[in-house]
């Protein structure tokens, strides 16, 4: 860790912190707007993105500026330590759900869940050491870009599905039932969430293949069961298993929603938990 750099003022930090603040505000606004009892009427959800999503866009802009400044200063992208992984994930996941919310009215109903997760990443970022990082030579390959991009797309889709599953599960509470009264029924939500999860499966499969290509070129093995590889494979297995279980066991929408939560939780642990037990994203492989 570069203690000197960590203790000095870094030009990207004000932008990143302002982005986090906007994100937390967006989450708070989503709960205050989304948790209100819906007026009576037919089942539907709104056609335009509300203020929380627009605030998220502002947060993304600020985070993007912070990331760009850090990139320019260090000369490499945010691929390495927990600070960079959290900052880049906040931006990329936010971008994916912001894009999705403009096209998927059901996801807009799940704003409290989705934006809270992003706010959590942001708050975590504040507590993480922003020390300068050094990009190892084995990371200087275009394959890394594909691997990281596919990983973000996978987690972004999983977050999208989590928003839908979250609405379904929150509707099991009295307040949730009132707040989401006009959101389409559980079967519709469940079907939509799992369609998004199927897209997530494609991205995760591609991410694993790109990762194997990178690992072969960088470290002379395509798979070595390092912590991140192991947990990424377990996530893939759980997702595939959940898809099979959903079809073969005829599970209820609520149980299927819990499966979405489980897959997302495992993916979250893989992306943000494994770096706790591993100095680099791929332990010992740098």
């Amino acid at each position, binding site marked *: 860790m570069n203690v000197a750099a960590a203790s000095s003022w870094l030009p990207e930090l004000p932008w990143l912190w302002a982005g986090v603040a906007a994100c937390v505000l967006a989450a708070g606004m989503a709960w205050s707007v989304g948790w209100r009892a819906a007026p009576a009427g037919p089942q539907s959800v709104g056609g335009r993105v509300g203020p929380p999503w627009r605030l998220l866009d502002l947060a993304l802009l600020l985070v993007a500026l912070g990331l760009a400044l850090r990139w320019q200063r260090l000369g490499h992208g945010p691929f390495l330590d927990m600070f960079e992984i959290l900052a880049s994930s906040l931006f990329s996941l936010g971008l994916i759900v912001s894009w999705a919310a403009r096209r998927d*009215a059901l996801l807009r109903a799940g704003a409290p869940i989705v934006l809270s997760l992003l706010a959590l990443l942001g708050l975590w970022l504040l507590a993480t050491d922003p020390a300068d990082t050094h990009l190892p030579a084995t990371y200087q390959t275009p394959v890394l870009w594909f691997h990281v991009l596919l990983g973000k797309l996978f987690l972004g889709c999983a977050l999208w599905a989590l928003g839908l599953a979250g609405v379904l599960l929150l509707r099991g509470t009295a307040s949730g039932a009132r707040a989401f009264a006009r959101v389409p029924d559980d079967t519709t939500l469940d079907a939509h969430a799992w369609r998004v999860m199927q897209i997530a499966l494609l991205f995760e499969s591609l991410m694993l293949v790109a990762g194997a290509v990178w690992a072969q070129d960088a470290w002379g093995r395509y798979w070595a069961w390092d912590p991140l590889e192991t947990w990424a494979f377990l996530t893939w297995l759980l997702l595939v298993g959940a898809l099979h279980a959903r079809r073969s066991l005829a599970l209820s929408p609520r149980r299927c929603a819990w499966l979405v939560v489980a897959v997302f939780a495992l993916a979250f642990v893989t992306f943000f938990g494994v770096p706790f037990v591993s100095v680099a994203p791929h332990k010992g492989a740098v």
Partner: protein
Amino acid sequence: MKPLRTHVASPRLTLVGFALLALAVWATSTDPRVSSSWIALPSLLLAANLLAAMTLHRKLRRGGLGLFHACLLLGMVAVAWGRLQHYEGRVELTQGAAFEATVVETMSRGPWNDGALARLQFEQGPWQVHYAPGMRRAQTVSELLVAGRSTPQRVGDTEPLVVDGYRFYTTHNKGFAPLLRWQGVGREAVTGAVHLPSYPLFDHKQEQEWRTPEGVLVKLWLRLDTPPAEQSAWVFDPTAVAATLVVELQGRRVELRPGQEAFSPLGTLRYERLLGWMGYRIHHDPVLVPLFWLALLAIVGLAGHLLSTAPLRQRLRGLFSPVSSPAPRRTA
């Protein structure tokens, strides 16, 4: 009574297989005493389950889903075939020296490995390792002269040397190799390089012991004239480093510069010059490329299957165009 095939093809058995596979993966990753071969058992169960299901259900062997499942099965066969023929090893190569399979340390080798490693012919050329300020390793550039190729091949970091399917990857392991010439009394002179510990990882103990053909113990230390400054960028090129070789020969300590000699009643030791050694990781798996294409084909099949279902196709179309709401309301 249901035939055995129906039991084997059970979708519940698929779920059991997934659970067992997850358990095996988790166990092997958390407990080093558990062999990774335990992963093979649930994989075989899942393969049998899939094969039986494909023979029973037409939809599982048609279209994108069929392609996905076929690639999964073929992929498992390819992995198994690769393990039977694979080779993993490591070797340290001295600058200017030819590759010798006899000095390779084998890490693992499949029972059906072709043994072609022994026939490979190439020579280690010059190499350089670049360091960023703070002693952080950057680019590694190593030149290898392969028999039959007119120009040296530059390898390093993400670029391996590939000869007859064997892939040689540079590693962080590299160091100094003083070239010595020993002339025993009444014997023929022998020349060779002694590999010192990895540098700069073990910069504090650049020492080694070597016995001459007569059994005389020679102790060696390398003292660099100017050690690299930690806070500056530098390039590790062993042939460009000025250093003194401190030799202890039969109880007598001598400091040698390149070209100088140390004498003893049993012979003369000449320090020719300073070279380097580079550590390589060797990997051979004949199914590496087919496995990559199988994996891609499997994902293409899966994508084709998902896109062929009407609701998803409609939904995907919907994803790329803004939704028009039947009854706008204020939501988050």
